[in-house]
């Protein structure tokens, strides 16, 4: 199984998410995550899917079938392009007076933030590519994760396809 990142620009007509997920079910495509949100243009939304596919033929089918949907304006498999891809996770970690500072110390280099503190837990917000989010979760696991929620990946291609500075190509695949 290979992971691919596919984006679709769609009319946000009612039911459009249904059409897309229904199509995935009908054709037996595995979706890892979907994010949907408005774009800069009114009435147009952008969906980002992370899907796992068996081979090139399957990803080709997926994009072609998506393209056939009347409410879908554009479909791109951006996996192999220079992209920015981010997801956000909220992680509620067990903590007490002793561990709170420790957790704070772990969170900082990730440029994650503690957004809620209670007597027995802290909530960490982390944003980044999937690897980074997963690394953060791994590090927090030993303290006991009470609750975890992730948005799934949202992505688009970089302004310039030649990557600038240190911005490595997204490595979800590798």
């Amino acid at each position: 199984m290979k992971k691919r990142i596919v984006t679709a620009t769609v009319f946000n007509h009612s039911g459009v998410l249904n059409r897309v997920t229904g199509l995935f079910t009908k054709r037996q495509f595995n979706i890892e995550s979907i994010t949907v949100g408005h774009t800069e243009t009114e009435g147009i939304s952008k969906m980002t899917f992370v899907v796992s596919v068996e081979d090139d033929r399957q990803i080709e089918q997926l994009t072609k079938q998506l393209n056939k949907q009347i409410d879908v304006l554009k479909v791109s498999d951006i996996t192999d392009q220079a992209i920015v891809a981010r997801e956000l996770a909220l992680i509620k970690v067990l903590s007490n007076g002793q561990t709170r500072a420790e957790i704070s110390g772990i969170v900082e280099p990730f440029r994650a933030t503690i957004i809620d503190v209670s007597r027995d837990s802290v909530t960490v917000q982390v944003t980044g590519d999937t690897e980074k989010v997963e690394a953060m979760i791994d590090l927090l696991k030993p303290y006991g994760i009470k609750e975890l929620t992730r948005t799934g990946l949202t992505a688009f291609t970089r302004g310039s396809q030649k990557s600038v500075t240190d911005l490595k190509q997204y490595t979800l695949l590798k």
Partner: protein
Amino acid sequence: MTVKVKADPESRLSGSETLIHALKQEKVDVVFGYPGGAVLPIYDALYQNPIKHVLARHEQGAIHAAEGYARVSGKPGVVIATSGPGATNLITGITDAMMDSLPLVIFTGQVASGVIGTDAFQEADVIGITMPITKHNYQVRKLQDLPRIVKEAFHIATTGRPGPVLVDIPKDVAASIAQVNFNDSIHLPGFQPTTNPNVLQIKKLNEAIESAKKPVILAGAGVLHAKASEQLLAVAVKKKIPVVHTLLGLGGFPADHPLFLGMGGMHGCYAANMSLYECDLLINVGARFDDRLTGNLSTFAPHAKVAHIDIDPAEIGKNVKTHIPIVGDANEALNKLLQEKGSSSMCEEWLDHIQQYKQKYPYWHNEVKEVISPQGLMEMIHTMTEGDSIITTDVGQHQMWAAQYYTFKEPHKWVTSGGLGTMGFGFPASIGAQLARPDKRVISLVGDGGFQMTSQELILLKELNLPIKVVIVNNGSLGMVRQWQETFYEKRYSQSILSVQPDFVKLAESYGIRGYKVSTSEEARTVLSDVLQDDEPALIDCRVSPTENVYPMVAPGTGLHEMIGVKP
């Protein structure tokens, strides 16, 4: 009494009147439907401002009739049904049309906007239910949108790869009155099918043809949708390439032409299947490599370079690896191919070789004196009608025999359910076919099982005086099921023998049409030649051999080159 339905922007119209006017704008000449609570406003407008309406006796009958109409006329079939049960009764037909790419525009009533989502009386989530079985669907939220939605629905149904589009109209929207504008144009930036094929790809195909030694064309229903029969013939003749049809493509290429090899697939003929197996260039024109056609994919066309012309890019490469993909309309693609310079393929040897298959291994069957052989019956009907009738079939053995033995010289005369294999399709489809072509003889070949799924529509033959001849190929069983049980389940005939049956003659008579029962070839010949003379409906219950099986056959899991039951 007529209602003002002028297209002037000042006119205030009800939703229903708007719909009728919009249908007239689309030049709809007949609708198939059934009334009910949620469509009362629409039927009221129809009463005031008639479009020919065919009242089927079951919504499934209405939609199959619309499919028959669409298949024969090439125009969209239009269906109206009420909310809830009316709409759900359409599901089989919608799916059938989706699978076989038939243009339909279906209007369903819906409960009033205010109660949608409350499980109101006769509410069903028709948009949700039909999403995977329509090309697109709409729920009309406000009357002002209706003219545009109707335009878009017809456009989508008939453009690119045809298919069914459903428009769900809440009762209050149909009843509301507003100033409507019929000039709104369609707005479908997400729907721009490519019809004009890429010239470079055409050139590649042309080169592939020139270097091929064993080319074959596989022609599907896309040829018929694109009205490309003439171009297909021209290409085949110019390039000297033999032609195989899919089940749904039959009629696209003249069956009596020397280059025609017959139907391919599970019950196709030996020459057709062997040519697909042995070819070194396979040119698919408007077929979708259905599994009933390809047999086991791992041994399908193993030596071939594959070119595929299809209006739907998603069909290209879906099942079979394709070397020369050509997205576009079959008509335009074949025309462009004809314009390319170049010689015909140099393949006399191949043509001879395939001809030998054709000569040596035709369809074959045994004739027994006392009983009617179903294959012989097909041949008899073919001879009597000179292969010039419109034939609709149901699904099962009789369908395969009809496909094998009733051969066509012209397109748009073959009406059958392929992709979904819908029993109950054939008879109502003949009603739509006859309405589309009142000038043509229409014969409905049905099984004794499937006919009973939609036989209530017999009343329409009486009511509309349609001169359709219904031929029941009565083998006293769900023959195709029986055949598989005989072959693959050690003759355990579980629920496939119809030992008790209605009296089909009396059934016909109770609907006010003539019924006949025939048990020998002689009787069949006499009755058929009799009823084919006149313009009245008739039903003929033909008692055929109950044990006959369809051969040759590509058994499930095997390849096209492994046919069983080939002529010895």
